[in-house]
């Protein structure tokens, strides 16, 4: 009984390993530009606190505009992960696909800059209404990751109900 159970588990594990090994080599479909900035944190003079001294960049630029290869089916999250690996930026996220959420980049985390702070991203200048793990990139896209200290209001992110949300959740 126990042996049968164990051998079943082993089979499942083995087949899982087999399937993960089957992903085919992808070809790049073009390039996308990515930049990571925390200007709003700098504007709030967070870098002058001892805690952040030497961790936050003085000019607010964690990653300047950089061209990176985009592969078929790559999402904004995949691009950020690639940037993290290529340029050794600290980054923490949880979830995948629709639930993917960026907690912090470059050791700057959500809530570090106040209650309404966190990371937001724009594609070609517009802040989309979907998550970063959902949005697929195409050739020539420009992705900007910006830190907000005010629920997107200090970035002109164009979320109409941000102010209303803030007022209702005092």
């Amino acid at each position, binding site marked *: 009984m126990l042996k049968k159970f164990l051998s079943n588990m082993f089979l499942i594990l083995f087949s899982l390993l087999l399937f993960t090994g089957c992903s085919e080599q992808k070809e790049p479909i073009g390039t996308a530009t990515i930049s990571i900035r925390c200007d709003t944190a700098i504007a709030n003079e967070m870098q002058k606190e001892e*805690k952040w001294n*030497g961790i936050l960049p003085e000019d607010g630029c964690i990653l300047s505009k950089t061209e990176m290869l985009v592969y078929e089916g790559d999402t904004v999250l995949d691009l950020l992960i690639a940037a993290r690996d290529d340029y050794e930026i*600290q980054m*923490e996220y949880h979830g995948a696909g629709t639930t993917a959420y960026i907690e912090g980049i470059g*050791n700057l*985390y959500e809530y570090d800059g106040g209650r309404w702070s966190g990371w937001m991203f724009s594609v070609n200048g517009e802040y989309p209404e979907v998550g970063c793990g959902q949005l697929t990139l195409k050739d020539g896209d420009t992705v900007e990751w910006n830190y907000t200290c005010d629920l997107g209001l200090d970035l002109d992110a164009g979320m109409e109900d941000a102010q209303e949300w803030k007022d209702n959740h005092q």
Partner: protein
Amino acid sequence: MRYFKNLHPICIFCYLVLVILLILLCKDPFVMLLACFGALFFLARTETRNTAIGRLKMLLPMVLLITIANPLVSHKGVTRLFLMFGQWITLEAVCYGITSGLSLAALILWFACYQKLMTSDKFLYLFGKIAPASALLITMTLNLVSKLQLQLKQIQDSQEMLRPEPVGNLQKLKKAMRHVSTLLGWSLENTVEQADSMKARGYGIQRRTTFHLFRFETRDAMFLGMLTLLGVLCLAARFTGCGVMEFYPRMDALSFDGKHLLFYGVFGILVCIPGILEWKEELLWRFYSLNQ
């Protein structure tokens, strides 16, 4: 003669509340090590060696587990060690894991001391008048664990006499199940008996009274005075920046300037008081006859 146990319950309760509060407020590996040491020092005076080893066997893997688990969950920190599952393991997260593991161990050890020091009669004496129902309920609940352990031991002993030693995992599992079901039946029966007994003794007719022999003596007043002094010193140091380390995004350096050393010293004395008092009594007891 057990000196610390014989202090007035209010002294013991205040002392334990202060120490546990300080452990909860602080976030510093040294403070946690001191707290663990103080609790172990006291427990080593009052327990047998086997119980102490059993405690360590449970606590050390727990500290290790938290130390390993924290960096796997949290990836904050500027000092990167290596990549694992696509995310960086950082030194800060490891150190934070060690500190929180030690603080959990310190809390468990101090609650073990609490169980040794604040027996149910003392607890009922302190809170029986203010909140009779909840005090009784809390004592009964806390009593339940040790009572069940005792009963399980009795069941195991008697079953060992009745049945041969089981062979194989399945037989062992069956044996354990039998013990647990016996324990369940027994405790159900106990509940009924306890309720009957309480009713027969007139529980609920009048306010509950307790019998006690506690007297507030000069030594209790002295102890409370010393406790206030040490407690105020510790809390003042805590709220002027001692005993709290920042771990994220960058670890604070361990500072050993005058203020910090004073804080560690005072806290060290505070947590060692029960152990020292017990030790003193033990030495006095041993050498008393020689000095005659």
